[in-house]
């Protein structure tokens, strides 16, 4: 199964990850509005996670079944968190 496909360049992905990490740390010191900084930091984190998942975990080369197994829990977790907002964030 795995013999045929082209292997991604693992080191290049690592370089990207390190660059993004440094970018994330630096971004947290930017003099922007707090919400903008947080947004930026998490966009960076999500990109890193995506890189690891797609290349190191070979998600790019997997079937739809495995995609579903990743996406469904992620969606559920996000939904759960948002549904907790009215009750635990806005109640003051």
């Amino acid at each position: 199964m795995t013999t045929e496909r082209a292997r991604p360049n693992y080191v290049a992905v690592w370089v990207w990850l390190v660059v993004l990490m440094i970018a994330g740390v630096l971004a947290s010191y930017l003099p922007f509005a707090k919400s903008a900084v947080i947004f930026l930091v998490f966009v960076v984190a999500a990109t890193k996670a995506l890189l690891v998942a797609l290349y190191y975990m070979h998600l790019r080369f997997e079937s739809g079944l495995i995609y579903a197994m990743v996406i469904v829990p992620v969606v559920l977790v996000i939904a759960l968190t948002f549904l907790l907002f009215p009750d635990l964030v806005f109640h003051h």
Partner: protein
Amino acid sequence: METTAATRAGTDILPGKVGVWWFLASEVMLFGGLIGSFIVSRLGSSGWSGEAAHLSVPVAAINTLVLLTSSMTMVMAFGAVEKGDPRGLRTYLFLTVLLGLTFLGIKAYEYSSEVAAGFTPVTGLFWSFYYTMTGLHALHVLAGIITNLALFVMARRGLRNQHRVELAGLYWHFVDIVWIFLFPLLYLT
């Protein structure tokens, strides 16, 4: 979905891989539930940024680097399996274990300096979350190290069934991804 394979109707994915992905799905829910609770608790209270400022960003950044690198060595171990290179497999597994231990070492150093500074799990809700989340993550790292050590021993004995390297890798990368989110959640905001 109408498959009519000659031998089995099942998909051609390795059972181990399907199993590990299902397991990871439930792990996403575990860490997701914890992170979600943290996010809503944080947004619902105030003053947590001040608490977070007591954490050391440089140390955590180095630790992130360690874990990212260990992910690379892990995937290279898998690459070695695919190429049929037992030497490379052993080297990379060994490196991964080493990096994992380094991560735990640095984490332990962090814990001890924080406790010394008077921040324990009962100092406040932020610290409770901090210790619970990183603690649970550290336990996962530990489990990964043990798995990789076992694989390393097997690889030295020249055992077959090396598809397990891929499975252990999936788990290891997942633990890495969890850290990728814990790092900004706890340290950077």
